[in-house]
């Protein structure tokens, strides 16, 4: 068994560092940008044509939270090549699997995280808005200087949850031909007929990655909470 672990570890870690981790990090960063944008639009009090925009973003969040991630990956990678529109996409939309993966993971994470960010902004007391407005700040300055810095602290644990989920969900990318860590473990298991060892081993490496992220979360929570005094 030791021999199997020794020989397969370099291949698994190579796939992990080449695909699993970069895909997770890039998707999460794009997802967060989408999430912040979505949350701010949905929280806006603007009326008129803006209501249509709000409805579109509400639909987006609903769509990505109500359908399985695996199905979303299949639609983007296997389905879009058949979306043939004359003049724009005469040959359908053919995406490199990594690009398809990052698009899908970003949109999926963005939908979930937008709800986290929206709730954390709503949790900041009304008095903070009133005090900032009374000083003469515009809404965008209030958000940037007063509300979001406090909302980040509150949203950190649930956002870390989403990131950790995403790291593990990248294993679904195996199904759209990306040779990430889980795909490599499947390939090795097919050769050495040791599925128990191989899948347990890859589980351990996912757990190691996620443990590092948990530590990072703890550190960030400490940094962002330095202004809070608690007796807990």
């Amino acid at each position: 068994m030791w021999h199997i672990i020794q020989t397969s570890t370099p291949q698994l870690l190579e796939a992990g560092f080449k695909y699993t981790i970069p895909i997770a990090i890039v998707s999460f960063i794009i997802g967060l940008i989408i999430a912040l944008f979505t949350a701010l639009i949905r929280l806006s009090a603007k009326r008129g044509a803006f209501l249509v925009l709000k409805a579109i973003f509400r639909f987006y969040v609903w769509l990505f939270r109500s359908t399985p991630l695996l199905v979303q990956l299949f639609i983007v990678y296997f389905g879009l090549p058949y979306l043939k529109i004359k003049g724009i996409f005469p040959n359908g939309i053919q995406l490199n699997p990594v690009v398809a993966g990052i698009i899908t993971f970003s949109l999926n994470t963005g939908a979930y995280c937008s709800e986290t960010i929206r709730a954390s902004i709503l949790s900041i007391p009304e008095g903070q808005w009133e005090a900032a407005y009374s000083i003469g700040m515009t809404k965008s300055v209030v958000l940037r200087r007063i509300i979001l810095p406090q909302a980040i602290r509150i949203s950190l644990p649930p956002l870390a949850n989403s990131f950790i989920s995403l790291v593990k969900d990248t294993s679904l990318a195996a199904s759209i031909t990306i040779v990430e860590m889980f795909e490599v473990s499947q390939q090795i298991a097919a050769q050495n007929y040791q599925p128990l060892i191989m899948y347990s081993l890859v589980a351990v490496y996912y757990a190691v990655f996620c443990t590092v992220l948990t530590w990072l979360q703890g550190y960030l929570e400490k940094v962002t909470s330095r202004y809070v005094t608690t007796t807990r």
Partner: protein
Amino acid sequence: MLKLENVTKTFGNHKALKDVSTTFPENKTTVIVGPSGSGKSTLLRSLNFLERPESGHYYFDDLDIDLSKPVSSQTILNIRRHTEMVFQGYNLFPHLSVIKNVMEGPVQVLHQAKSKAHDQAALLLAKVGLAEKADVYPAQLSGGQAQRVAIARSLAMHPEYIFLDEPTSALDPELELEVLKVLLQIAKEKQSMIIVTHNLAFARQVADKIIFVEDGQILFDGSEHDFFATDNKRILDFISAMTFSDLEDD
């Protein structure tokens, strides 16, 4: 000069302000008193548009605003840059140190250089007796200290008017005294202030003018002397109810 004319404000079916007209003189302290739910906080919060009255006129220096028409956000921003609000619950920014709370407006709104804003903030904190607290976070302050920081934060903007909404209602008498001393000092320096308070002993000391509000209407609008010398039965009852523990012989 700040002036209201026939201002009304309703919340659903409740008329919070009924046809209110009054003036708030410059370089003077106006105190608004009245029972709970009388509309005095609504009156104060209407002055910087935290509440939006639906009719009447609002005059501020050479601004003449018809409240029954839409008011541009630029106009509201302009009013807020020349007035400041101090809240019952302090509403300090918890993620910023005490001195950064005081610097925030000058730097972000008035676009002052950080070093200049810092020097001014240090002076203001010394003025309210909190120079040594500059680098702590608001969570480490007592209520009285937090409210004095909030006062320093408002002074940092050099406002034409400071509005104070029950600034000491959340404080025990000892902490209240710390805050009242600071306010008396500021009043002596001719800062225009409008204070909503339940503390009539303090009102007597600080007020140049008193407005008594009940049920969304102004029942009395005059000098501090005339208020306490009134023979209006309702106001006499109010004064005796509020001063059952008479604090004025100090």
